[in-house]
């Protein structure tokens, strides 16, 4: 386009700045609401704690196996991974289904719903608000040129291929704020308190993880480990050390 579009200063005063301010305020509000709704008493389950400890101990055994005598190592390996009542052995069919576990524990489902609600409701509301009042016009201009690829990112809601890409539509400005304000939130609310949407998504996808799978994996790697006692080598090393000391 040869001539530039001239943007009204009223757009800046009534769209650009209010939109950003509202986004920040909503972010802060959401943080406090989610803090209020978070269930306070989170006592971890005894069985889960125990499984975690078993895994740590088995891992220790695997990594430091060469430091104990062969007999002790074999005894421990049997203790961990025998087929009858080994600590790492999970009987077939008894492995709890995480889905079923989730439904059996109403608290867990409730927690997840709360988290979801505090995230989704404000987002849909603000999106509807932006869509209703500020849809379909250009709100800002970036001071440098960009390639066509950025059109879908910066000009959401404007279906004109002739407008220069450096113009930003109001709906796109909303999206930019939504994803770009994380740094600001971590400044305002403190490092770990940032309402980090992507992190929450990650947590949710990792939610259905199965501790029994971990036990099985640990058992397999314990089964294949070769025990090579390191201590006989230490005698020679000790001799060397002493020889140096005496000299």
């Amino acid at each position, binding site marked *: 386009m040869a001539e530039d579009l001239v943007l009204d200063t009223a757009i800046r005063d009534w769209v650009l700045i209010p939109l950003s301010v509202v986004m920040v305020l909503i972010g802060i509000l959401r943080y406090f609401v989610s803090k209020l709704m978070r269930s306070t008493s989170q*006592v*971890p389950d*005894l069985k889960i*704690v*125990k499984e975690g*400890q*078993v895994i*740590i*101990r088995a891992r*220790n*055994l695997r*990594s*430091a*196996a060469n*430091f*104990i*005598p062969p007999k*002790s190592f074999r005894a*421990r390996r049997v203790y961990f991974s025998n087929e009858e009542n080994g600590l790492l052995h999970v009987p077939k069919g008894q492995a709890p289904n995480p889905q079923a576990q989730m439904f059996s524990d109403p608290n867990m489902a409730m927690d997840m719903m709360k988290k979801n609600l505090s995230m989704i409701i404000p987002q849909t509301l603000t999106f509807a608000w932006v869509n209703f009042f500020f849809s379909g016009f250009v709100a800002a201009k970036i001071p440098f040129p960009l390639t066509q690829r950025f059109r879908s990112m910066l000009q959401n809601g404007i279906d004109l291929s002739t407008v220069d890409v450096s113009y930003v539509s109001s709906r796109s400005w909303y999206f930019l704020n939504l994803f770009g304000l994380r740094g600001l939130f971590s400044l305002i609310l403190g490092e770990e308190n940032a309402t980090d949407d992507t992190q929450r998504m990650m947590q949710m996808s990792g939610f259905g993880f199965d501790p029994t799978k971990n036990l099985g994996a640990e058992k397999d790697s314990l089964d294949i480990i070769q025990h090579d006692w390191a*201590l*006989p080598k*230490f*005698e*020679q*090393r*000790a*001799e060397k*050390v*002493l*020889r*140096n*000391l*005496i000299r």
Partner: protein
Amino acid sequence: MVTKTEDTQLNRLENQVDNGGGGAWEYLCLIKKLKVRRPEKVLKYGLSILNDSKKRSSLGSEEWTLYEQVSIAAMDCQCLNVAKDCIKVLQKKFPESKRVARLEAILLEAKGSWTEAEKAYTSLLEDNPIDQLIHKRRIAIAKAQGDISGAIELLNKYLEIFMADHDAWRELADIYVSLQMYKQAVFCYEEVILAQPTVPLYHLAYADVLYTLGGLENLQTAKKYYASTIDLTGGKNTRALFGICLCTSAIAQLSKGRNKDEKESSELHSLAVTALEKDYKNTAPGKLPLLTAALKSLKIS
């Protein structure tokens, strides 16, 4: 574990605070972070902050953790009145808190009213059955009362759940050694070594127990662990050097008829003897004759 840089930092801060250079709050924070035990210092400097209302209010919400830290330090120093006052303040601020209830139970324990403390701990455990600290306190009560078998039972129950806690394994090993149950102690020390395979002190303790158990195989293993202690400490550990000498002579005595001597082991033995002699010559020349006499008697037997 406290690393070396953290240790030097701690010592530097301690020096600075002791000489009135300020930085008491940072020092207390570091103590809490590293979990080192300096009750007198915590009590002294913590109280000086808490008694100064201006300094105290500048801490913000950290004020309450400082109260907790000081109260525990006060109980450690047997200043029970100070601890009581601190806990009272906390109780006023957080009337429902389990953490404060725990402190009160610890105060009961410090006073020596075992049954009441035990009752308090039991009721706290009902609310939260996996509170490690309370489990440990109960074990400590049993031990303080002289109920060693009870302590062993509780400790075993604790380790059934928290089996990756190597400090608890070490405590159990200590108790077993004190009761001369060496086979059980050997198992516990193996567990400790597995958790931290490069700490020479554990190798040394393990070797000691194996040597005490006796028997050719155990003695040979003990000797290997004394050797690893020497390697890990750079030959600075006198006990390990003596251990080598004792093991060698005991092994020689046991395998006298079998004629299965290893040449290398005798070399390690002679090296250990020379190292010991050199060490004594440098640090305690007056005791050298004693040492040579002792070593000679070992060789003859």
